[in-house]
């Protein structure tokens, strides 16, 4: 047993100062100190003989203890070179059969009148089965229920809904009723609520009712980078290796009805009033962010979270550089610390550029 081998769905991601070990099967992230990370061969195995030879006295013990604990936590196992051959690295392909994987629809008025049967058919043709509705104004009950009924009978697998909280719907038990009646709702988030809480716990990421006291009344609130939103799974990991973690296969319609890659972007590819989704996607430039991977983004490329993190190309630290780090990320991978982004001196340029100084409400 002269090798330590990681299980191939536990992947090592090296950062500037430390590494993460991302357990893609069980969805957990562990930290690995740099000296140990540097010892990995092909990011998969540690030659234990070499470790003992090349490392100084105390360090050997320290590193061996970490490796022992990795074995104990079932992240890897002791093996020999012979057996290592039987455990190939994970296939790096992104296996997600969709021309458009998800769709964001924004409305300021509470109405999405273009959401008709023929619109759902357009999504269907693009293999788009996941939809997010972001209401910045209160949707009339009848209107939203029409939309939900369309979704119920369609190919759409799940829908996430964001909408303003209001007293009348609360006292009418409307939110709870929607969650119960429409099983395709993964989560219904009501913003501007009296408190932030989980009102109804769902199961396996479906059927959640959540209240937040935050005022989320415009697309400018988007682009948050937060550990709570990291997703540790094979689909996210392989997508981040090959494509942009946020914008790949995304389509959106902003509050004006403009078809965009993301609602916060400037570039519009036509209005939903007179353009089909397929036409918009076919226009030059629509996919221009799809291939920007985390490994190409400055600072992120040195970050140990880059394959579980989300990304944002709409709000950048340096608005003039498409490869710039997301503006709303407060993490510094060189010192491994999180800070508040909105007050950071280096962020002020970006904040001014996007007009995010004042609270947006």
């Amino acid at each position, binding site marked *: 047993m002269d090798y330590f081998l990681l*299980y*191939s*769905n536990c992947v090592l991601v090296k950062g500037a100062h430390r590494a993460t070990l991302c357990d893609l*099967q*069980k969805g957990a992230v562990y930290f690995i100190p740099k000296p140990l990370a540097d010892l990995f061969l092909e990011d998969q195995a540690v030659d234990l003989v070499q470790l003992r030879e090349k490392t100084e006295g105390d360090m050997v013990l320290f590193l061996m203890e970490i490796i022992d604990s990795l074995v104990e936590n*079932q992240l890897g*196992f002791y093996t020999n070179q012979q*057996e290592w*051959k*039987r*455990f*190939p690295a*994970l*296939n*790096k*392909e992104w*296996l997600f*059969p*969709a*021309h458009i994987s998800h769709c964001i629809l924004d409305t300021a008025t509470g109405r999405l009148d273009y959401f008709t049967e023929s619109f759902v058919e357009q999504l269907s043709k693009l*293999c788009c*089965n996941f939809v997010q509705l972001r209401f910045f104004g209160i949707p009339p009950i009848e209107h939203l229920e029409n939309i939900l009924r369309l979704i119920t009978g369609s190919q759409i697998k799940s829908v996430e809904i964001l909408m303003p909280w209001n007293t009348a719907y609360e006292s009418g038990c409307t939110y709870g009723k929607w969650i119960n009646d429409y099983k395709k709702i993964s989560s219904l988030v009501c913003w501007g609520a009296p408190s932030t809480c989980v009102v109804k716990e769902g199961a396996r990421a479906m059927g959640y009712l959540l209240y937040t006291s935050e005022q989320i009344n415009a697309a400018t609130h988007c682009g948050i980078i937060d550990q709570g939103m990291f997703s540790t799974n*094979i689909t996210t990991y*392989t997508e981040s290796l090959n494509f942009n973690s946020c914008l790949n296969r995304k389509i959106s319609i902003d509050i004006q009805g403009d078809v965009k890659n993301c609602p916060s972007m400037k570039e519009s590819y036509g209005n939903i009033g007179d353009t089909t989704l397929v036409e918009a996607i076919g226009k030059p430039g629509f996919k221009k962010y799809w291939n920007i991977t985390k490994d190409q983004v400055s600072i992120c490329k040195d970050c140990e979270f880059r394959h579980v993190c989300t990304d944002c190309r709409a709000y950048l630290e340096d608005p003039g550089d498409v490869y710039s780090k997301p503006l709303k990320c407060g993490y510094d991978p060189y010192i491994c610390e999180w800070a508040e982004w909105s007050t950071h001196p280096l962020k002020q340029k970006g904040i001014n550029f996007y007009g995010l100084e004042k609270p947006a409400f």
Partner: protein
Amino acid sequence: MIVIHSQQDESTTDDVLDWLYYFGMEQVKRVNGTNPINAKALRINNHTQHSNLFDDAESSAINAYWYRRGHLACEISEPIKLGYSGFVTYFEKEYDHLTKGISQVFKQYRNINSFEDTGTNKLTNLAVAAGVDLLIPDTLVTADVKAIKAFSAIYPRIITKAIGHNRITATIDDNSYINIAVDTAIFDQDKINALPEENNFLPAVFQEYLEKKYELRIFYFHGQVYSMAIFSQLNEATKVDFRKHDTETPNRCVPYQLPEDIEKKLGRFMQHIAMNSGSIDMVVTPSGEHVFLEVNPVGQLQWLSANCNYPIEREIAKFLLHDS
């Protein structure tokens, strides 16, 4: 037209459909559940027109067929069932013949599995596996207590399992039943000693207990082989039978590269039993030997593709599209 025989809640079928739609194929007919053959018409002549086998899917327009799950069955009415028992026995045999015939017909299309594969025999499969030089566990099928005792004396431990079907539904009334799981279990000395030698038992399967480094789940599909190692030894709950899922600490499941000779033997095995796709269970012993256990024509696939990031569903779709 691609015809898929499945069940309404079978998610691998959904995943393959994702790929078919992605490749632009909309001519798909998914038939779910138990399909009574009463209303089907099978016509056999020199032009091989098999009319009306799956509702409106004109059989002449079928380009590919995938049997995933579900049944072809003949519905025999209650009064007949409650009548003279000889009738039912006769009808069951008679329509089993027709069911097999229909399954055979589908094998003439480009196909993945057929309903007939569900009748594959675990005992003869062991013999076939041994015949192509795959290692198999020493196996005894008997009800003879003396034979079991003699068998158990050769090995430190033996296990037992069902001969072919591992679930009994003991009906209590219309809306309740007792589910009996006949899973792989250690058959220890206490249990053996408790067996009276004079008896009228029914037979069961006994096998030497194999120490495992890990277990393998292998998906064989028209010559392609996808293997996964399951580190079931890490969890007490799954040591004997990894299908007993431990949801708290799921077993570690990772891609595995079979030795070339084993892969070849498995290919020969599948050819011998004439099954073009199936999920094979194997065990790797501490000394590195690969031991064959069984093949299941309708095994779980998501488990494999999701943990190993294998493009299995895509490849199935491509096969159905004549693109591989």
